[in-house]
């Protein structure tokens, strides 16, 4: 049985994602021993001390400049050997979904996926996670050592930094056995944060009526509050928004503080993807649309009329 928690701290070009601070802070709050942050592809990370990291291990050089499964698995394997943690935490995003199962299969570990709560029970970590697209919840325990958990972004919150710096040391990793090579990268269609990590989302439904309608109504409204644009499946299937924008049971599961649904009826498959949003705003011209049963604030109106007014009010509020 190991000691402490190893946190995989993700960054984008040396800038830590919000989830890095969120995971470190949660790991520290659990009080299971020292928190070590592993940083792959960037030599820094002292600032993670401000959120509770006791030590930072960095892996640089070789093929670490961008994510690859071989580097990810080798680096975490080396860090586990160096730290002997009781648990490993990673953010439940694209990297962990690709790399963590491969690591777990290599080391024979169990992975508690996508937990939204974590507590200690008699010295053992217990996660709570949604299943069946949020239609049910269950506790999840992992009996391997280390126990691996992936944590849903925005579920735990980020405290203010204490300003403390953590000691940073380099971890030597030899990456071997790469079976694939990244031959190209296609840049994201927009510079905003990924839906699964977004703190604000504005989604449009089928009734945006065209790609032009989506681009003129939804994107600027999202842009006004730094939100990520999303869409219903009907909107995506009609070709008005790319499939990467789909929110729902067969799209992205999102967890923002603010979710604005524009002209979305609120079918069960859509709700499955966004029902845990803290505040839900629904704009729909049909007062009987099911989305209103889940909305914190509802507006029964034509979204093409309300949308631009709302955008102007939001811009004014944020400017003032």
């Amino acid at each position, binding site marked *: 049985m190991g000691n402490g928690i190893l946190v995989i701290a993700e960054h984008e070009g040396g800038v830590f994602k919000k989830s890095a601070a969120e995971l470190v802070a949660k790991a520290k709050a659990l009080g299971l021993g020292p928190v070590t942050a592993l940083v792959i592809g960037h030599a820094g990370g002292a600032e993670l001390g401000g959120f509770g990291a006791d030590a930072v291990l960095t892996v640089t050089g070789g093929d670490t400049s961008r994510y690859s499964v071989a580097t990810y698995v080798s680096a975490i394997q080396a860090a586990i050997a160096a730290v002997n943690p009781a648990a490993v935490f990673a953010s439940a995003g694209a990297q962990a979904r690709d790399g963590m199962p491969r690591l777990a299969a290599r080391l024979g570990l169990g*992975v508690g996926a996508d937990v939204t709560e974590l507590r200690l029970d008699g010295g053992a970590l217990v996660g709570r996670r949604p299943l069946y697209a949020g239609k049910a919840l269950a506790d999840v325990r992992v009996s391997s050592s280390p126990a691996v958990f992936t944590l849903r972004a925005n579920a735990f919150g980020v405290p203010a930094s204490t300003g403390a710096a953590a000691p940073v040391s380099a971890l030597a990793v030899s990456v071997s056995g790469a079976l694939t090579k990244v031959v190209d990268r296609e840049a994201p269609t927009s510079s905003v944060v990924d839906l699964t990590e977004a703190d604000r989302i504005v989604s449009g439904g089928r009734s945006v009526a065209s790609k032009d309608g989506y681009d003129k109504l939804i994107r600027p409204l999202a842009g006004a509050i730094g939100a990520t644009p999303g869409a219903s499946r009907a909107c995506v299937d009609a070709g008005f928004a790319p499939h990467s924008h789909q929110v729902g049971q067969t799209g992205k599961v999102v967890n923002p503080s603010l979710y604005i649904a524009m002209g979305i009826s609120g*079918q069960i498959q859509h709700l499955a993807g966004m029902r845990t949003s803290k505040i839900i705003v629904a704009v729909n011209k049909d007062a009987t649309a099911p989305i209103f049963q889940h909305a914190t604030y509802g507006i029964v109106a034509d979204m093409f009329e309300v949308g631009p007014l709302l955008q102007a009010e939001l811009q004014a509020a944020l400017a003032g």
Partner: protein
Amino acid sequence: MKIGVCLKQVPATDSPLKVKDAVTGVDLAGVKMQINPYDEFALEEALKLKDAKVATTVIVYTVGSADADARLKDAVARGADELVRIEDAGLADADSLGLARALAAAAKADGVGLLLCGKQAIDSDNAQVPAMIAELLGWAQATECDKLELSGSSFKAWVAAGGGARDVLSGALPAVVSTDKGINSPRSPSIKGVMASKKAKVDVRDLAALGLSAAAVAPKVQLSAWGAPAPRPQGRILQGSAAQVAKELVGLLRSEAKVI
């Protein structure tokens, strides 16, 4: 080349599910089942490769009980050739790694050169089994792939790289590829296929047949204390002209909800 498809049956997406009790979990009695939506993309990709004469045989694998046979036959109706169902008491509470060990052993025994999976089963929502199979077999992997090209024994896969970016991976077969929406549009069953599905046989294998012991698939992940999500608090419909409600909403988001 033989191509394998991992296919799971899951509750239909529009079924309102109830938690039976804290121990049993979701009550599936009488719930309509369907092929996991992401596995439909995996199956379609395999069938396209068969149409292109790259695949000789499409073998569908599932771990589950006999009530999943109907879903396997749905796959034959669309053009799959062989059906393998893995069932064993030792897999009753299997975690992702246990499922992956069973599926990996079966695909290996059949000499599959490419194994297609969905990116995620929408019941357990783990998104783990495909990459685990790849590691267990020592094969290349492509996760959440929305475009796949094969040429000879090499492949190129467009995969999610986080933040909306996509990486283009190249590698050599054999490989495990998990499919995402956007990769293709699944076909409907053909009349010929539906006829064939009536006669289709399911090859049922237990752990012993796969050369595995119950201990090898013993779960390390345990679920308990099942419950329903808390209902959302009653919301509020704002009244007034479009200009009034827009203004009121922004005020509420700022002062009451404190999210902007």
